[in-house]
């Protein structure tokens, strides 16, 4: 019986097994949950790892074109759910999973808890607009809670110094992701509360796929909401926000943005100085010009008044002159009267002052008569 059955090669068997496995619909595009072990990411971009549970293990590969679409960075120990198909490798007689999609287990759970916490804290009013304080853009001291190395702290410091170098910067370093992060962030935050800061910046750098979960920690969020000084959060990016972002007094999508929210730009101030100086100068110039005008028109008024005054006085003088003229004794001559004077020039106004043979001068209109008295008759 054993000798009469057909004899196959190993390759035949392995090929046949592969055919069976890969044609089985039930083994195509199935979801499998397991823990990643022996994870290795190759330079080619492919992931090679094993997926295991408490009792079994199976090899798996995720090719680079699928890896690109993967939204998280897997590592050994991660609990995941994959979408995969069975494949077999004939030369080795082994089967494995070809993975198309990978998702962390509990993603849904995590999201649910996030929404629950968000609702709860919102209901307490921690995210209310009315609680948010205005940021003093002329700060004397700014606190920064972030990782002690990396782009975030560098960007924040550089931009604060560039915009408003008057502000002192106090750095409270902390882990920003991982298990220890929430506790460390809280410690740093509470430490910062002891300082006399105008503003506190809490943030991190990193790309979209970074783990922001530490900034959803309830204790940290509460601390932010109850902060002694205004808080600027620079945690979440354009798409996602963390609860710390909601609780903060202001938020930016980048560390640089946070520095910009926290300070006035000195160039604005310098411009303001320039314009203020111009405005004040113009006001002063206007004032002087107004006063010159006032002075000028007063001068005119004065001149006019003086001219009028002189004219009036001239007229007065003329009228007196005319009156005087009219009363002048010389006028009397026009009417036919004459003035008789003795040889000394004294006017003879009394008959007693003249006698026969005196030499007298008589002024009449047009000239004088010089004569000798023939006879004197008293009236």
């Amino acid at each position, binding site marked *: 019986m054993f000798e009469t059955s057909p004899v196959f090669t190993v390759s035949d068997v392995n090929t046949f097994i592969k055919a069976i496995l890969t044609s089985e619909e039930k083994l195509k595009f199935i979801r499998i949950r397991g823990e990643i072990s022996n994870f290795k990411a190759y330079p080619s971009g492919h992931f090679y790892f094993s997926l295991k549970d408490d009792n079994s293990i199976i090899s798996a590969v995720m090719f680079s074109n699928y890896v690109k679409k993967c939204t998280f960075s897997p590592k050994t120990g991660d609990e995941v759910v994959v979408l995969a198909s069975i494949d077999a490798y004939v030369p080795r007689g082994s089967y494995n999973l070809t993975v198309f999609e990978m998702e962390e287990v509990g993603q849904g759970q995590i999201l649910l808890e996030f929404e629950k916490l968000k609702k709860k804290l919102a209901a307490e009013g921690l995210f209310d607009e009315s609680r948010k304080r205005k940021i003093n853009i002329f700060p004397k*001291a700014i606190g920064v809670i972030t990782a002690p190395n990396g782009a975030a702290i560098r960007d924040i410091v550089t931009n604060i*110094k560039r915009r408003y170098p008057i502000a002192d910067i106090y750095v409270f370093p902390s882990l920003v992701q991982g298990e220890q992060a929430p506790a460390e962030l809280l410690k740093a935050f509470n430490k910062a509360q002891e300082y006399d800061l105008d503003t506190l910046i809490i943030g991190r750098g990193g790309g979209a796929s970074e783990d922001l979960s530490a900034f959803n920690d309830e204790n940290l969020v509460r601390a932010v909401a109850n902060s002694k000084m205004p808080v600027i959060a620079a945690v979440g990016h354009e798409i996602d926000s963390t609860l710390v972002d909601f609780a903060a007094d202001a938020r930016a999508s980048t560390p640089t943005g946070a520095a910009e929210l926290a300070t006035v730009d000195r160039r604005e101030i310098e411009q303001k100085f320039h314009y*203020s100086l111009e405005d004040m100068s113009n006001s002063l110039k206007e*004032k002087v010009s107004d006063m010159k005008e006032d002075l000028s028109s007063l001068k005119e008024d004065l001149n006019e008044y003086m001219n009028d005054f002189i004219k009036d006085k001239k007229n007065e003088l003329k009228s007196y002159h005319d009156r005087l003229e009219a009363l002048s004794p010389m006028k009397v001559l026009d009417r036919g009267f004459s003035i008789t004077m003795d040889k000394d020039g004294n006017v003879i106004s009394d008959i007693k002052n003249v006698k026969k043979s005196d030499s007298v001068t008589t002024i009449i209109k047009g000239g004088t008569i010089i004569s000798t008295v023939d006879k004197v008759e008293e009236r």
Partner: protein
Amino acid sequence: MSENKNLDFKKGIDRLEEIVNLISNKTLTLDESLKLYEEGHKIIEELSKELELAESKIENIVAIK
């Protein structure tokens, strides 16, 4: 912490804005206008200098054990 920031920067800016407004008032005397101008000019000089000389002090609060 801010021992040398005797000039409250914001107060200076606010007063400067105030002066620019006040000085445009036509009913001021020349003397009052000049005094305001001097004050404004002084504020700008002092604040500019403060900005120029300022250098952020950066303190790393380490060892939060």
